[in-house]
């Protein structure tokens, strides 16, 4: 499903070159639930940004479903993110002007689906993540864990091939974290959702099929 070869990402800040990824090769199979672990600063987020098409690698190749995504134009990358990928950020990243439901169905609306279909699908997914009674709530009316579940619902609404989550539990208490991880596990088991999750908590490993350890930009 995902094949990356010799991926590097070097940040250039003036004369300083930060080698965040130093040549990573990796294969992720369809239906896998993978966790990426490593110390802070080891390059986990950087790797996920490359996979999620939020950033451009310095070198190397990323094939998703056989497609070399580094060759896509800005517009095509945007469309690819919309239709093929779901991304959950470490910090809560929901749009404050939109209700929970609107946040969730926005990507589907962008796909050109009928508004009513979007609303129905949005309600459906919010029910699945346990927020069926929070449809019309705004960001400031939701707890951190609830916001994160809205973000997950939004990432799932277009039935992405791969779901990326960058430390989705970093700002959550252990109960909320457990809920999120259970949700991922369920999605992975029931819908064979491919999930790539960054974490630095050891106990998260037990939910995942495979662990990839990153250290100083290398596996």
């Amino acid at each position, binding site marked *: 499903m995902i094949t990356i070869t010799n991926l590097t990402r070097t940040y250039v800040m003036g004369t300083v070159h930060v080698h965040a990824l130093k040549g990573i090769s990796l294969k992720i199979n369809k239906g896998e639930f993978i966790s990426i672990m490593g110390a802070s600063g080891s390059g986990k987020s950087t790797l996920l*940004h490359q996979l*999620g098409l939020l950033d451009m690698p310095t070198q190397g190749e990323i094939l998703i479903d056989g497609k070399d995504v580094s060759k896509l134009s800005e517009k095509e990358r*945007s469309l690819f*993110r919309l239709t093929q990928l779901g991304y959950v950020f470490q910090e809560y990243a*929901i749009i404050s002007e939109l209700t929970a439901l609107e946040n969730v169905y*926005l990507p589907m609306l*962008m796909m050109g689906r009928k508004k009513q279909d979007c609303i129905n699908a949005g309600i459906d997914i919010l029910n699945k993540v346990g927020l069926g009674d929070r449809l019309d709530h705004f960001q400031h009316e939701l707890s951190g864990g609830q916001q994160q579940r809205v973000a997950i619902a939004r*990432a799932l609404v*277009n039935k992405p091939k791969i779901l990326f989550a960058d430390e989705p539990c970093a700002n959550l208490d252990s109960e909320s974290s457990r809920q999120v991880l259970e949700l991922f596990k369920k999605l992975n088991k029931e819908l064979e959702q491919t999930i790539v999750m960054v974490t630095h908590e050891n106990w998260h490993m037990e939910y995942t099929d495979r662990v990839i350890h990153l250290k100083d930009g290398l596996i």
Partner: protein
Amino acid sequence: MFNDLKVSFFLACKSIQRGNKGTSILTVFIISLIFVNLIFFPSIVDGVEETLNRQSIEHVCGNVVIEPKDDQRYIDNADSIEKKINKLPGVVGTSSRYMSGATFFYNNKSKSGSVHSIDPSDEEVVTKFHSGLIAGEYLGKENTNEILLGIDITGKEGEVTGDSDLGGVQVGDKIDVTFSNGVIRNYRVKGIFDISSININRYAFITEKEMESVLGVENQASEILVKLSQRGTEEEYKTNFIELGISEDIETWREKTAGTIGSLVDSFSLLTIISTVISLIMAVVVIFIIIYINTVNKKRQIGILKAIGIEQNVIINSYVIQVLFYCFSGIAVGLLLFGIIASYLSVNPIRFPLGYVEPVVEQVLILQNIISLVVFSLIAGFIPAWRTANENILKAIWG
């Protein structure tokens, strides 16, 4: 494409709906003031022009004026010319006048100017200066020893104006008039008129009968004014008059006054341009700042939108739509405000030295200003929206 617009619209609506109401109202209000400013000044300039035009017709030259050919002093056979013209449908009346330079004397004071002669009943049909009488009465046909004077000649009693008038002549007073051909007559002042208009208050009127005796002429005229029932038809009638065989100089009021009113209006047009440019710059700055602050505040949200696959253009367009919303709301409120101001001023016109002026609103002017305001606002809103939406996703989200 259509769907992209739909999403832009969705985002814009939610943003307006859930954004700060106070800011929105203030924005709309400022744009409405800018819009009023854009159309108010030009409409007053147009109003001034209209007032001058109306006064020219009503007091100075009627709709069409016939004058002697260049090499002649008087129009010959004035009566027959008037008869021919009066037969045409749509001609309300004609008034033939003589004109002579003259000096007025009263109580050791003198003032030079000119005297016009009129057939009182003909003149009444053509011009309106009789309605400006502030004292005394209008002339009768046989009043050979009486004169009507404008307020600029009589002056006001007690008002010290130096030598520029006769220092307060009253109705019933007698004044001496020396005509340019040397004839001296003594007249009783029958009436005094005051018309807030350019020049007219410097006129003096005597009867045609009296003037013919002063000048020693008959059945001639210095000018014949023609009043038409409809303004705007002057050119047609000018052609008709030529076809009737009138070989004198024929000018419409517009031709007759083109020089004076034209140059006055031209000198305003520079001011109009300056005021328009300033208004548009204000609009650009206001919209730019509002959208700039808006997008900078929402930089992170814009980054998130891009991250989840909302295309950059959709985001930019959502701001453009917001600008359009503010702009058209501002224009609507501005039109309302302007309507209120204009209807107030049509009841209570502004008093200018040259007469009462009310704003004249041309639809073309409004349309032009709507278009320029919208275009400039769009540019002013697009630039900050484009800049922010163009930023790298990760930078936008994490700064």
